[in-house]
C-alpha cells in the first residue's frame, strides 16, 4: 500500500531536484536555440559556478573572503564576463563553420574549466559559507514538506523560465535572438548583428548555468566535482523537452528529477513496491532511479524525435 504523503514528499523532492537541473538545462537550450551549438561544457560551467562561490566566499585561494551574498553575485557576474570573453575570443571565430567544430571546442572548454578547478582544489569537495547552507524544511498542505534549498531552487527556476519567455516574446532583443536562431542568413540581411546576438546568448547561458551550479552546491552542502555530472543528466532533460525549447528544458528537467526520485524509492532496495497480485518486489537494483528517465527519453525519442516541445523541422529535398 503506497503511503500518499511519502509519495508526495518524494515527488516534491523530485520537483526540487528537477528545478536545480532546470537552470543548467535552460542554459544549454538557450545556446542551442540561438546558435545551434550543443554545449558539452555545460556540466563543467555549472561546476565552475559552484566553486566560484568557494573561491570568493572563503579564503581558500584568495587572501580574504567576501560576504557570501557578494560571492554569489560576483560569480554570476563573472559568468557574464566569461560568456562575453568566450564569444569574442573563441566562438566568433567559428561563425559559419561546421557545428561539429564548435562542439569539439565546447568539449575542450569543458576540459580546460575542469583543469582549472582541479588545479585549485584537486578533487576536494569544499564546504559553502554557512550563510548559503539552507537547512530546514518548508511545510506544505496535506502533511507534506520540501527542503528549503529545493524550494528556493523551484522559485528561482520558475522566475528564470518566466523571464526568459517574456524576454524572447516581448522584447525587441528577444525577437532578434529568435530571428537569428530561425534563419541566421535572413537575420543578417535585415541588419541583425549576429556577433552581438551570439554574445548575448552565451552571456545569459553561462550566467544562468553558474547560478544553477551554485544552487546545486547549496543543496548538497558545498561545491563538489560531482556537479559536472549534471551535464549528462540535463542532456536527457533537454532532449526530452525539445532541444530548442526553453520551457521544454524546464519541464524535461522536472520530469527527470521526479522520475529519478520516484524510481530510486519505489523501484530500488527495501522500499521497492510489490508487483500487483504477487509477492515479488519490483527491485531493479542500485542506480535504477538514474536509468528510469533515460528509458522515458528513449520512448519519447521514438514517438516524438524532436522532444515534447521542440521545433519540428521539415526540409524540402
Amino acid at each position, binding site marked *: 500500500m503506497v503511503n500518499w504523503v511519502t509519495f508526495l514528499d518524494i515527488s516534491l523532492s523530485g520537483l526540487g531536484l528537477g528545478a536545480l537541473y532546470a537552470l543548467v538545462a535552460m542554459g544549454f537550450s538557450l545556446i542551442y536555440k540561438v546558435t545551434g551549438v550543443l554545449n558539452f561544457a555545460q556540466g563543467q560551467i555549472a561546476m565552475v559556478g559552484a566553486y566560484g562561490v568557494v573561491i570568493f566566499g572563503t579564503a581558500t585561494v584568495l587572501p580574504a573572503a567576501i560576504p557570501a551574498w557578494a560571492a554569489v553575485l560576483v560569480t554570476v557576474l563573472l559568468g557574464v564576463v566569461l560568456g562575453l570573453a568566450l564569444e569574442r575570443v573563441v566562438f566568433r571565430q567559428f561563425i559559419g563553420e561546421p557545428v561539429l567544430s564548435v562542439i569539439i571546442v565546447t568539449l575542450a572548454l569543458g576540459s580546460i574549466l575542469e583543469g582549472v578547478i582541479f588545479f585549485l582544489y*584537486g*578533487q576536494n569537495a569544499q564546504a559553502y559559507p554557512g550563510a548559503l547552507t539552507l537547512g530546514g524544511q518548508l511545510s506544505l498542505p496535506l502533511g507534506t514538506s520540501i527542503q528549503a534549498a529545493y524550494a528556493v531552487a523551484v522559485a528561482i527556476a520558475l522566475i528564470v523560465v518566466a523571464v526568459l519567455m517574456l524576454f524572447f516574446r516581448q522584447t525587441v532583443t528577444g525577437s532578434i535572438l529568435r530571428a537569428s536562431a530561425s534563419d541566421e542568413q535572413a537575420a543578417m540581411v535585415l541588419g541583425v548583428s549576429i556577433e552581438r546576438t551570439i554574445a548575448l546568448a552565451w552571456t545569459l547561458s553561462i550566467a544562468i548555468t553558474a547560478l544553477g551550479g551554485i544552487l546545486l552546491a547549496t543543496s548538497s552542502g558545498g561545491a563538489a566535482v560531482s556537479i559536472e555530472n549534471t551535464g549528462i543528466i540535463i542532456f536527457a532533460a533537454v532532449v526530452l523537452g525539445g532541444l530548442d525549447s526553453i520551457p521544454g528544458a524546464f519541464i524535461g528537467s522536472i520530469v527527470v528529477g521526479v522520475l529519478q526520485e520516484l524510481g530510486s524509492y519505489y523501484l530500488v532496495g527495501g*522500499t521497492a513496491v510489490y508487483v500487483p497480485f504477487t509477492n515479488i518486489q519490483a527491485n531493479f537494483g542500485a542506480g535504477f532511479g538514474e536509468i528510469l528517465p533515460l528509458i522515458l527519453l528513449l520512448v519519447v525519442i521514438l514517438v516524438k524525435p524532436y522532444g515534447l516541445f521542440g521545433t519540428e523541422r521539415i526540409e524540402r529535398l
Partner: protein
Amino acid sequence: MLAFAGCIGGGSDGDDGGGGGGIGADSVMIPGIYDESGATSDVGRPTAIGSRDTITYINENGLLDASIDHPNNDYAYEVPQAQQYYQQYTSDSSPPLIIGWGTADTEALAGTVAEDEVVYVSASYSANLVTEEFPYNFFGNLDYTSQARAHLRWIADNDPEATVGFIFSNTAFGRSPVEGGKEYAEELGLDVAPDINLPLTANSATTQLRQARDQDIDYLIHQNTSAPMRVLLEDRQDIYPELTVCGLTYTVDERVVQQSPDIFEGVRYVNAFRTFQGALDSGGRGADIIEANFEREGRSMDDPEVAQLNYVRGVIHALLMLKGIQNAAEAGNDPTSGPNVRQGMFGIEDDNMFDLAEPFSFAEDDRRPTMNGRLFEVTDGSLSFDTTVELPRRDSWIGL
C-alpha cells in the same frame, strides 16, 4: 630507474646472498603509484605526501643501510595508467615492494604482483586481498568488512535492539564490506534492513534517507568517500536527523569535519590508526617523524589539507615498507628481493608502527594486520577517540 642489489656482508645464505643485518646495496628501489589528481585524490594526495615525506625521513636519518629510491607517479585513479606504471617500474628492474593505492588498481594488479613476486602495500582494505590467491598484497588497517564489524559490535553492545542498514556506492569498493557485515550483524542479533545505494557522485541523498527512515534504520553503516558522506549528512539534517551514521575509513577526515562541523556532529568513525592529532599526542617515534617531516617540508600543522589522518595512513605505508626491508635484512636475506621482503613482512609482530596504530602482526596464513578497530565520534568539529573494539580473529572471516 636502476637499483643496485649488491652482496650482503656476513655469512652467506644461499641465493639470498648473506646475513648480518646489512643491506649491501647502494639503494633499494621502492616505486609509488599514487592517486593525486583522480577521483580519490582528496584522500590519495595527503596519503602520497605522507609516504614520500617519510621515505625522505628514512633516507635522511639512515634508518636503513641503503637509501630508498622512490620514483613515483600519479595514476589519477585510472587502472590502465596504474598498470602502465607498474610495467614501467618492473620491466627494467625488480623492485621488492611497490606502494600502491586504490581497490580497482590493486585488485587488477594483484595477480601480476603475485606472479612477479613483488610485495604490494596499498590502501585498499578489501578482505579479498588477504586470501591465499593474492599472497603478495598487504595493507595497514582493518579490512573493510571488519571496520563494519567493529561498528556493529559497538552498536550491539550499546543498543542491542537497534536496526542497522548498509549504504554504499555500487562499486567493488562499496560492496566489499556488505555481505560479511550483514552476516555479523545477524549473528549479533541486530535487525538488518535492506541495502541502500548512494553513488560516489551523488548530489542528493533525500531518497536514500527516506528509505532509511521508512525502514526504521537506527544506524547506517556507510562505505563511500567523504564527498557523498557530506551530501548524506547535509540531507540528514532535514529528512532524518535521528539517524546515526557510522562511516568506514574513507568517509571522514579532519578536513571535511573542520569544514562542516555542524553536519558531521555525532558521526561515528572507525580506523585502526590514529588521527593526525592523536598521532602527535601519542608522543611516540611516529609523532617525531611527522613533526620532523612537517618542519623539513615547511608544512603547517594547522592545514587540514595535509595535516589529517590520511597523512598518517601514508606514513604507515612507508613504515610497513621500512619494517619489511629491515626484517629481511636482519634475517640475513637480500632485501632487494620481493620474496625476502614478503618474509620480512611476517617479522612484523605486535608492532604499533611507532605508536601510530593498533598493533600489527602479519603471518603467512593470515595477513590481516589487526582485528582492533579504533572508534571515534565527531564532536565539536573534531574526531574524538571513543573506544577500541577487539574483534575475534576468525579464520572464516579471511576474504569475507
